[in-house]
């Protein structure tokens, strides 16, 4: 059996290498799309930290990515002297702060679908506030968000040139994925899992359940806010649609599509979703039916998700010659 850390590091390194090779292989439109997919993957991974590790079904993740996106957009447009990495940190903080504020209320009812409804309602409130506040550009949002410069000591890099911003997106999303993986493996992650399995017992064992859940919510909010912030200069626009509840369904889609029980599942889901969208791009007008039918098919026929099912098949294939070598099924949020 491979040890988890090298296996994870190898997978991540391979993914980053592949992503960085893309600009040499495909046209700029596809490179742009790949940047969005990387961001979507982080949205999915942070949702899955909540869902599979901490056992919280959030239906309001769009509020946090919108918070990060608007924070980054405002800083880039109004305070361009703020270094971009600081702006990214501020956006992550915005996501985490909003998550704490919403979590303080919503976490009073964590059972199943109630939490989903509460987070959905709060994210709709964020949507309304964005669409009605002048600072946020009301319905039109904020446009013309520039790609930043990175300044360090002596020199500076203009990320508006060529594919440089894409490279930054890949590096930051990879670092975020690594951080999320580390959290699921840490003592904190173990506490999250203990609460998911049996909150009452966890409390009995001395785990502060409410506090830990709030931490999980804040960490996922920070990663989601960071992903939103990366998207703002990429698409050069933020608008209230970012906080629409339809956007909150996306990380859930990625997760279930790819497989909630596997760490990389949401990332696979994000890639597959983008591929389906790209393949059907000229069938415009039928997108509702296609997306709806695809989702329904996955949920009903492949409940373990694509990666989850593929891994299970692969194990079964490997297990046939030597059944005793078969590893136990991966725990939720477990093996890479």
């Amino acid at each position, binding site marked *: 059996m491979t040890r988890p850390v090298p296996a994870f590091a190898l997978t991540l390194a391979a993914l980053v290498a592949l992503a960085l090779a893309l600009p040499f292989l495909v046209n700029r439109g*596809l490179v742009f799309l790949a940047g969005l997919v990387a961001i979507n993957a982080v949205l999915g991974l942070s949702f899955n930290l909540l869902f599979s590790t901490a056992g919280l079904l959030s239906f309001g993740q769009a509020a946090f990515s919108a918070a990060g996106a608007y924070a980054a957009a405002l800083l880039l447009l109004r305070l361009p002297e703020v270094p971009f990495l600081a702006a990214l940190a501020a956006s992550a903080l915005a996501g985490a702060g909003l998550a704490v504020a919403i979590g303080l209320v919503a976490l009073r009812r964590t059972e199943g679908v109630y939490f989903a409804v509460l987070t959905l309602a709060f994210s709709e409130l964020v949507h309304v506030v964005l669409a009605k506040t002048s600072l946020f550009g009301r319905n039109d949002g904020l*446009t013309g968000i520039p790609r930043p410069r990175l300044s360090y000591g002596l020199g500076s890099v203009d990320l508006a040139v060529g594919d440089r911003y894409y490279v930054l997106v890949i590096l930051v999303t990879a670092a975020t994925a690594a951080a999320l993986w580390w959290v699921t493996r840490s003592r904190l992650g173990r506490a999250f899992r203990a609460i998911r399995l049996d909150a009452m017992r966890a409390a009995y064992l001395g785990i502060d359940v409410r506090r830990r859940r709030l931490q999980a919510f804040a960490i996922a909010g920070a990663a989601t806010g960071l992903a939103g912030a990366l998207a703002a200069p990429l698409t050069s*626009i933020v608008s209230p649609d970012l906080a629409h509840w339809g956007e909150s369904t996306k990380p859930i889609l990625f997760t279930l599509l790819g497989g909630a029980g596997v760490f990389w599942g949401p990332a696979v889901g994000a890639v597959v979703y983008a591929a389906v969208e790209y393949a059907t791009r000229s069938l*415009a007008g039928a997108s509702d039916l296609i997306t709806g039918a695809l989702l329904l098919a996955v949920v009903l026929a492949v409940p373990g998700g694509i990666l989850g099912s593929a891994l299970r098949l692969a194990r079964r294939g490997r297990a046939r010659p030597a059944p005793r070598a078969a590893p136990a099924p991966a725990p939720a949020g477990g093996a890479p």
Partner: protein
Amino acid sequence: MISRRTLLAGGAGTALALSARPRIVVGQTNEPIRLGVITPLSGLQEFIGSFVRNGAEVAAQMINKAGGVDGRPIVLEVRDEKANPAAATTVARELLGNGITLQLGTISSTVALAYGPLMQAENGINLTCGAGTEKINHENYNPHVFRIGDGTYRMRAQARLMAERFPAVTSWTGIIPDHEYGRTVWAVFVDGLLEFYPAVAGKPPTIIDPIIVPYGSGDYRNFITQAVRTPARGIVNATYGGDAATFFQQARPYGLFRERVLMDAANEFIVANALKDQVPKHWTGSHWYYAGNSSALSRAFAEAYAARTGEAMPMGWAGEAQAAVSAYAAAIAKARSTETPAVIAALKDLTWDTVTGPRTMRREDNQAVKDLEMIQLEPDPGAARGFKVSDYVRVEGAGVIEPPTPGRKMSLRAPA
């Protein structure tokens, strides 16, 4: 590099071009001209997007049947912008990445505003087919975005028509959706009222605060109750599509429009098609009224449109798409190039023929100058659709368009 291409586009140095960059010389090749059509084909604005898409396809088909642009056929790549700026920029970049730099079809203000910096950075062009915001050709002016159709000044023309037709109706209010689009429509209409009522009717108008209504609501009765109490004798409506049909439908028992003049901003036939013989008599703006334009081009386009879609009463967005496709065709023929800088240069000051007659692209702010069309609709239980067009007016664009102020806010009259 750019200056050389512009020089070539001016018609000089063809031989040089042949040797250096054979692709930019037209007439020597029949390589297709690929145009990107990005418009909402799902979500709330799909209805309008379908007119843009079909209109563009019919226009391309007609140009190709007539031999294309100097022998080159036009091929369209259609994409769904989902009425969402992020999705719109994604498909725009996908097309740009594939070398499809000449794009058209946006109807959303937010998307059109987002395209300026994007097209500039990626060296593309977008021709919007109905985005309403005044920012496009004012404070957010960008040389890479053109509005080939009615600008904001359409509402000034509608105000002028009201002053001419109803000089005694001097008190006005509005039914305005709680959205940037609605606020713009109201502000420009008021600007027109304040200019044209004193000038045409000899009386200053009374402007009464508009009734702001929510977007996408199923119940407008409170707002209708408010509106019934208004002393205004004229009402301008900026609600749109299904919202407008709901509002008119619910207003029926209240008799809101019984003794008032109703000017609708831009629903064309949407509301009348829905309400049929229950539609109140009203005026509405139209990008292109197919039966009011008797040119051969307009008639052929309407016929081809009906043949393709089965829709015998096409709405004006189809005409805007036709204007966009033919603007590219005319600009490419003039520039003898499909390169972005050359096409931009050719579009500026371009006068080209469209289903609504000739239009001219104003050089300073990329805003087309065209005649504004308005139609009056009234119920007619005998008609197949339950309503008829009882009047049609054209207002010359040059007489109502605002002065160009690219980079600066549009200045509007406001009630004292």
